[in-house]
C-alpha cells in the first residue's frame, strides 16, 4: 500500500482532462492544449511508475472496500506487464492527441473528452485486480469508442460504430454471466471477486469449460480472433486516425491482456483443453487475414487485416504457454501497437494530402515527399519483421517458443509470415513507388514539424525495441514466471 494513490491517479487523470476539454469546448485551441497537457502528464506519470513496477521489492497496489455485501473491492495493482501496457497507452494517447490537431475540426471538446476517456478505461482494465472492477472498465471502453467512430469517422461511420458496439457487447454480456458464475463457484460465505483468490481456487473442471468459453468469446471479439473479427476492418476503416491508433494500439491489447491475465489463469483446466483450438484459430486467423489483406484496395483496411494477422500470432504464443513464447506474445502486444499505430498515422497523413484512402490514389509518395516516404517504408519494414526492428524480436521469440513444444504449428506460422511480407510489400509498392496517381492534388507538402513530432518518437521506440529489447523483457520476466505455473497441465 502506498501513500500516494499513483494507480488511481493514472486511471482518473485522463478523465479529469476529459472534463476539462468539455468545459473548454468553446475554444478549440484551449481544448487541444488541455488534451495535450493531460496526455503528457499521464505519460510522465506512467514513466515514473515504470521503475516502481519493474522493481520486485516494491508492490504497487491499492485496495479498498467498495460493495462489501458482494465482496467487491476497488483493487488495483501494477506489475511489469500492466506497467508496460499503461505506458504504451499513455504514449499512444499523446500521439493520438497530436495527430488529431489537424484532422479534427468538428466539436473538438467532446472529441478529446472521448479520446481521454478511452485512456481511462484502458488503464483501468490493465490495472484492475478485482474481477468486477475489471469487467466494469472492460465494458466502459465501448461507449467513448462508439462515439469516436460514429461521430468523427468517415462516410460509413454509423454502421461501423454500431457493428463494433454490438460485437463487443455480445461477448461482454455473456462474460458478465461467467463473472457471476465464477463468483458463485466459490464456497458460500467466502465469495470474492479478488483475482488472486479466484486463481488460487479454480472452479470445478466442468464449470470451468463454460466460464472459459464465455471469457474467451469476449476476449476473442476484442482481439480479434477469426471468425469474430469482422467488425474490425469496418471499425478501423471508418474511424478517424487517432481512433484507429487507439483501437489497434490499446483496445485490441485489452483483449490479449484479458486472455493472458484472466482467461488462462482463472480456468486452468479449460485453458489446457482449449490449446488445440487456439492453435487452429490462430493459424486460421494468420492465413485468412493475410490473404484478405492482400486483396484490399483501401490502405486502411489493408492495415486493419494485417492487425488481425499480427494478433493471431499472439494467440499462438499464448497457447504454446512457455516462458519464451509468452514473453514473445507480450512483447508483440507492444510492438504491434507501435508499428500498426505508425502505419495508421501515416495513412492518415497521406490520405489527408491525397483526399482518399484508396491505394490507387497514392503512388510516387517517395518522390513527392521523401521524408514521409522514408518513415512509411520504415514502419512497413517494422511490420514485415525486418531484423533490427521491433516486430522481428517478438515474432522470433513467439515462434521459437512455440517450436519447442509444437514444431508443426511453429512451422505453419512461420510460413504465414511470408504472406505478411507479401502484403506489406504491396502496401509499400502501391504507396511509395510508381508514378503519382492523376487524382493527386498539386499541393503535396513534405512532413510538417507537427507530423515529425508524432513520427520521430514512434520510429525511435521501434528502433529501441528492435535493438535493445532486454530492458522490456526483464520487466516481463516477473509476470511470465508468475503466470506459467498457474496451468500445471501445460507447464513442464
Amino acid at each position: 500500500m502506498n501513500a500516494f494513490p499513483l494507480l488511481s491517479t493514472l486511471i482518473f487523470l485522463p478523465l479529469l482532462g476529459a472534463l476539462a476539454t468539455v468545459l473548454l469546448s468553446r475554444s478549440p485551441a484551449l481544448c487541444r492544449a488541455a488534451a495535450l497537457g493531460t496526455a503528457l502528464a499521464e505519460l510522465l506519470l506512467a514513466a515514473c511508475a515504470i521503475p516502481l513496477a519493474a522493481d520486485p521489492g516494491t508492490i504497487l497496489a491499492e485496495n479498498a472496500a467498495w460493495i462489501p455485501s458482494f465482496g467487491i473491492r476497488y483493487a488495483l495493482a501494477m506489475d511489469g506487464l500492466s506497467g508496460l501496457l499503461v505506458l504504451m497507452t499513455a504514449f499512444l494517447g499523446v500521439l493520438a492527441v497530436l495527430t488529431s490537431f489537424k484532422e479534427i475540426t468538428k466539436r473538438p471538446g467532446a472529441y478529446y473528452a472521448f479520446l481521454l476517456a478511452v485512456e481511462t478505461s484502458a488503464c483501468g482494465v490493465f490495472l484492475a485486480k478485482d474481477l468486477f472492477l475489471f469487467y466494469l472498465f472492460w465494458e466502459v471502453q465501448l461507449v467513448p469508442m462508439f462515439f469516436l467512430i460514429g461521430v468523427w469517422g468517415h462516410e460509413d461511420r454509423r454502421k461501423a460504430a454500431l457493428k463494433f458496439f454490438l460485437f463487443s457487447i455480445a461477448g461482454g454480456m455473456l462474460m458478465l454471466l461467467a463473472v457471476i458464475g465464477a463468483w458463485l463457484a466459490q464456497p458460500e460465505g467466502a465469495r470474492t471477486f479478488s483475482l488472486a483468490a479466484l486463481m488460487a481456487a479454480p472452479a470445478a473442471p466442468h464449470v470451468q469449460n463454460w466460464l472459459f468459453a464465455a471469457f474467451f468469446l469476449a476476449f476473442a471479439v476484442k482481439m480479434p480472433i477469426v471468425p469474430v473479427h469482422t467488425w474490425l476492418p469496418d471499425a478501423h476503416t471508418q474511424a478517424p486516425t487517432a481512433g484507429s491508433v487507439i483501437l489497434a494500439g490499446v483496445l485490441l491489447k485489452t483483449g490479449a491482456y484479458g486472455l493472458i491475465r484472466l482467461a488462462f489463469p482463472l480456468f486452468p483446466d479449460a485453458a489446457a483443453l482449449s490449446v488445440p483450438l487456439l492453435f487452429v484459430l490462430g493459424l486460421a486467423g494468420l492465413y485468412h487475414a493475410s490473404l484478405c489483406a492482400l486483396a484490399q484496395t483501401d490502405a486502411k483496411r489493408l492495415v486493419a487485416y494485417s492487425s488481425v494477422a499480427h494478433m493471431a500470432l499472439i494467440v499462438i504464443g499464448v497457447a504454446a504457454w512457455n516462458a519464451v513464447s509468452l514473453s514473445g506474445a507480450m512483447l508483440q502486444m507492444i510492438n504491434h501497437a507501435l508499428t500498426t499505430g505508425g502505419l495508421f498515422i501515416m495513412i492518415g497523413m497521406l490520405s489527408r494530402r491525397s483526399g482518399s484512402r484508396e491505394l490507387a490514389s497514392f503512388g510516387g509518395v517517395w518522390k513527392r515527399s521523401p521524408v514521409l516516404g522514408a518513415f512509411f517504408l520504415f514502419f512497413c519494414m517494422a511490420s514485415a519483421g525486418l531484423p533490427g526492428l521491433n516486430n522481428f524480436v517478438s515474432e522470433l521469440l513467439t515462434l521459437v517458443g512455440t517450436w519447442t513444444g509444437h514444431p508443426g504449428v511453429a512451422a505453419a506460422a512461420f510460413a504465414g509470415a511470408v504472406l505478411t511480407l507479401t502484403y506489406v510489400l504491396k502496401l509499400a509498392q502501391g504507396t511509395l513507388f510508381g508514378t503519382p496517381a492523376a487524382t493527386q492534388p498539386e499541393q503535396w507538402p513534405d512532413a510538417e514539424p507537427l507530423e515529425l513530432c508524432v513520427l520521430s518518437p514512434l520510429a525511435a521506440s521501434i528502433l529501441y525495441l528492435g535493438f535493445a529489447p532486454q530492458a522490456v523483457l526483464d520487466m516481463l520476466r516477473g509476470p511470465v514466471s508468475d503466470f506459467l505455473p498457474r496451468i500445471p497441465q501445460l507447464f513442464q
Partner: protein
Amino acid sequence: MTAVAEGWTPILPYAILAGGALAVFLAASLTKGRPSRVFAPISLLCALGAGLAALCAAPQAGIFAGTLDAGPFARFYQILTCGLTAGAILLLGGYSRRRGFERDELYALTLLAALGMCLLTAAVDWVILFLGLEMLSISLYVIIAAHKDAPQAAEAALKYFVLGAVASSFLLFGIALVYAATGETGVAESLRDAAQHGMEGIALLGFSCILVGLGFKISLAPFHLWTPDVYQGAPAPVTAFLSTGSKVAVFAALLRMALSESPLFARMDPVLWTLAALTMTAAPLGAMTQPSVKRMLAYSSAGHMGYLFMALLAAPIAGPGPIMFYSAVYGIMDMGAFGALSTLSPLDRDADDIMDFRGMGFDRPYAAGALALCLLTLAGLPPTAGFTGKFFLFESALSAGYVWLAVIGVISAIISVYYYLRVLAAMYMRAPEWAPARESAPGSYAVLALACAGALALGLLPAPVLSVMAASAPFTP
C-alpha cells in the same frame, strides 16, 4: 402523546395524498375551474410530503387491523413511488401548461393514482390490493386522456381502459377463487395455506387468474401488446408516470406474493419460467424494428419487466434485495428517458419518430445528454445503475439455479442494446433536420438532473442503498 403519534404516523402518507387530491379540487373550485398555476405546487408538495412521511415513520408490523403493512418493504416502495409521482408532476407542470390542459383533475388524479400505488405496495389483504390497483388504474385511464386536443391520447385511454377492465376482472375472479379455496383474505396466508384445504386446484386456478391480471398491468408477454399503443398515445409525462410508478407498485405486490413461501409458486414454476422467457424474448424482438421511440421504450419497459420477473422466480431463494434495487433503478431510468422525451418534444406533438431526434445531441446538449445517459442505463452499461442492477438480477437468477433463464435474459439484453444505440446514433451521428423549440422548463430539467444523478450514484456507489435493503430484508410479507 407518543401513543397517538405512533398511531397516526403510518397512515400519514395515505392521508397526505388523499388530502392533496381534495386540496387540488378545492383550489379548482376557488379559481372557478380556470387553468391555474397553484395545482402543480400543491400536488408536488403533497407527493414529496407523502414520501417524506413514509421515510420518517417508524417501522410497524401492520396497521388497520393488519390489512396494511407498515414495515420497511412497504415503506421502501412508498418512498420510491412518491418520488416517481413527484417527478411526473414536475414534468407534467410545464408540459401541460404550454399545451393548455393544466387542469385540476390531472393533478388530483395523479395524486389519487399515487395513493393507489401506496396501497398496492402495502396491501397484505386481497381486498386492499384490489382497491389499490383499481384506484391506480381508474385514475390512469383519465390522466391518459387528459390532453383533450390529442385524439391519439383518447384512443390510448380507451384501449387501456377496455383491456385494463378485462385484466381487473381476471384479478377479481382470481382473488375470489383463492378465497373460495382457502377462506382467507390475507395475501400471504391464503397463498401459503392453499394446499391445506384440499382445494389446491381451485387455488391454482385462482392464482393463475391473478397472474393474468397483474401480468397485464406490468406487460408480461403475452399480455404486453397494449403497451406500445398506450405509451405512444399518451402524453410523454403521463407515459413516464405510467411506465414507472404503476409498474413498480404492481411489482411490489407481486414480490410480496413471491415471498409468501406459497406452494403455489413451486407448482407454477414452469409457467412462470415460460412467462419470463417469453417476455424477455418478445420484448426486444418487438422493439427492434420500431421507428417510433415511444413504442421502442414501451417494448423495452416490457423487457425490463421480464428481467425483474426472472429475478422474481429466484426471490424465494435469493431474497428480495436485487428486485427492490432494480425497481428503483428501473423507475429512475424510465422516468429520465420519458422525461427527456417530453422535454425534447415540440408543442404540437411528442418527439417520437427516430428521425425527430436527428442532431439533437449537439443541438440540445442537456436534454439529449440526459436521454443518452438514460438509454445507456437502460442498456445496462457500466458505470450506470442499469449495469449494477442487472448484475444483481442475474446474480440472483444464477444463484437460484435459473441458468437458462439468465442466458435468455443476457441474449435479450444484447439485442436490446441495438435499439438503444439506434437512438444514440440518430442523436449524435446525423445532421439535424429541424430546430426544435427551446423553452425554459426548469421542472423538467430538475427531473432529468435528478435521474442522471441517481443513475450514476446507484451505479457507482450501490453499497449504502444495498445495506439499507439488507436491513429491511427480514420482514413478514
